[in-house]
């Protein structure tokens, strides 16, 4: 999977050394990569740390819903592929924690902040994956969305993050291919398999459209995250690209695109065909019903279907593994009491 790093950022560069800031901004405008030892505005350092840490968190939390299906994978080849895929995500997390560490926060602190709920991870991992077809959808839609996002992040300005994106994206391409193959296999399968796949698609289409975050602020191109090339494309434009790519692909596979109502567990309670979802011949863009952004913010604030479960599992892993870290590294700290 995973990670669009889309933490909502407000950055105030007014307190920086203005000469150095001007030089920094001109280097970025010239396409020079910023390296850890270079001067950078404090807000940039904090912003990149927050972004890389959020992305790293997303990778290792993203490993959880799929990890739960390794023991149920329906063939040896799928079992092997899924193990390898989840392993890749953990590897992405490891690489991104290293990028974050160089920006000034220890891995131990980052893992602790994640499992105490102090820091966040990508919203889409707070949704449930109750069937094998959900795993197919995660690899197809979420990894597909992640690639789109990460390709633009690979075009950013912070050297270590950019290089990590290039490495990660090669693996994400495999995840996407595997997801596509799984969806195709299921949709060419039995009646039961097709029904299961439509249900999973109904659960994941909404979170996928929301993947790129809410509508942009006006003038976003001139605000620090984009001006400093921490991100290089607006949320709205990425979302449109995703819909243009995946809406027709879903319809071709025989899936129906619905607008869904869900209960607090993330399960669909009612649905209607998304009438907006058709090609606009004049713009060449596919339409889509605007997602429920109240839901988006509700889930970000911790009240999604699986927030508690995912964080608890990370915490469980962190606590279970503490003695192993002490045994070989010595001196890792323990967690404060559960909130």
């Amino acid at each position: 999977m995973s990670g669009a790093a889309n933490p909502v950022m407000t950055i105030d560069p007014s307190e920086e050394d203005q000469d150095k800031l001007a030089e920094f901004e001109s280097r970025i405008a010239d396409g020079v990569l910023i390296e850890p030892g270079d001067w950078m505005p404090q807000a940039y350092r904090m912003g990149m740390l927050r972004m890389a840490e959020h992305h790293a968190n997303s990778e290792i939390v993203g490993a959880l819903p799929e990890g739960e299906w390794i023991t149920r994978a329906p063939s040896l080849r799928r079992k092997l592929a899924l193990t390898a895929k989840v392993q890749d995500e953990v590897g992405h997390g490891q690489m991104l924690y290293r990028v974050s560490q160089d920006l000034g926060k220890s891995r131990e602190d980052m893992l602790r902040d994640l499992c105490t709920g102090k820091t966040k991870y990508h919203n889409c991992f707070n949704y449930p994956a109750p069937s094998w077809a959900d795993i197919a959808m995660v690899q197809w839609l979420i990894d597909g969305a992640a690639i789109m996002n990460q390709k633009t992040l690979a075009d950013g300005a912070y050297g270590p993050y950019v290089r990590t994106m290039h490495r990660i994206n090669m693996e994400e391409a495999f995840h996407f291919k595997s997801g596509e193959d799984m969806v195709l296999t299921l949709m060419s399968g039995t009646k039961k398999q097709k029904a299961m796949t439509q249900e999973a698609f109904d659960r994941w289409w909404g979170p996928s459209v929301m993947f790129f975050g809410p509508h942009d602020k006006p003038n976003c191109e001139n605000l620090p995250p984009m001006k400093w090339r921490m991100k290089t494309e607006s949320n709205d434009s990425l979302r449109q690209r995703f819909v243009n790519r995946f809406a027709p692909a879903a319809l071709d596979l025989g899936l129906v695109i619905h607008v869904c109502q869900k209960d607090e567990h993330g399960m669909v309670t009612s649905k209607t065909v998304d009438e907006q979802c058709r090609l606009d011949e004049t713009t060449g863009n596919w339409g889509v019903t605007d997602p429920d952004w109240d839901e988006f913010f509700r889930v970000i604030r911790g009240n999604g279907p699986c927030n508690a479960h995912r964080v608890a599992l990370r915490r469980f892993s962190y606590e279970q593994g503490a003695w192993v870290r002490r045994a070989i590294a010595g001196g890792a700290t323990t967690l404060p009491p559960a909130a």
Partner: protein
Amino acid sequence: MTTMQNMLKNPDANLVLALADDLLMLGHVQGDWTGLGPILEEDIASSSMAQDDLSHALVLYEHLGAHFGIDADVIAYERDIADYRCCDLVTLPDEFDWAVAFVRRWVISHWAAPVLDRLTKSDDQDLAERCLRLRAEQSLHLTYLDDWMHRLGSGPDEGRTRIQTALDTIAEHAGMVMEVPDRDLADIEAFCCGREELFNEWTTAMNVVLEHAGFTMTFPLPALDAFGGRRGTHAPHFHEQHAEMTEVRCADPGATW
């Protein structure tokens, strides 16, 4: 007789199945740890070993499958519970105790190595070649796991105590790795060339590492007629693991996944 029964009645096939099923179930139970390991780097290495074990099982099932005309996934997923030849140790629940999971894997890897050595000398050319490749990859596991055993042994008391406790737990079940998978095999002094010799080779290799790391583990070679998982009398937890493993596949029999 069905093709499956042909395979299950064949003494040589049972020896291969014993190893393949151990590797399948080891890879399967270790699957619980992917994404939840104590250290990211260890998690990644653990998943690599699980993939090796699963793909080694697949390589062996494909060998049997070609011989008996059965699809490898059908062998892996669609046998009756009593026809799985894995021993009681591999499927021993670790209850998310990393020390138990680690020692379980270490013991099985040490067992797989001499068994593969014997199978590389098989008259069956295809089997011998496959096992030669598997042996090389299992050697990498052994190097990695032995290194961990040494590191844990030279670490603080807390970790040493946990590992020794896990060794004691595992020792109660480890002997059953030597369970003969088929009654008929008991007479032919099977396991390729002498059960006692294999047992000694296996336990000696483990004891060299344990001694160096400051741990101990002793258990006897079970009697020839001792029976458990390898002869199909599996512990209840194997039934649960098997149900989980086959849940999706069996929900829609005959479907392609």
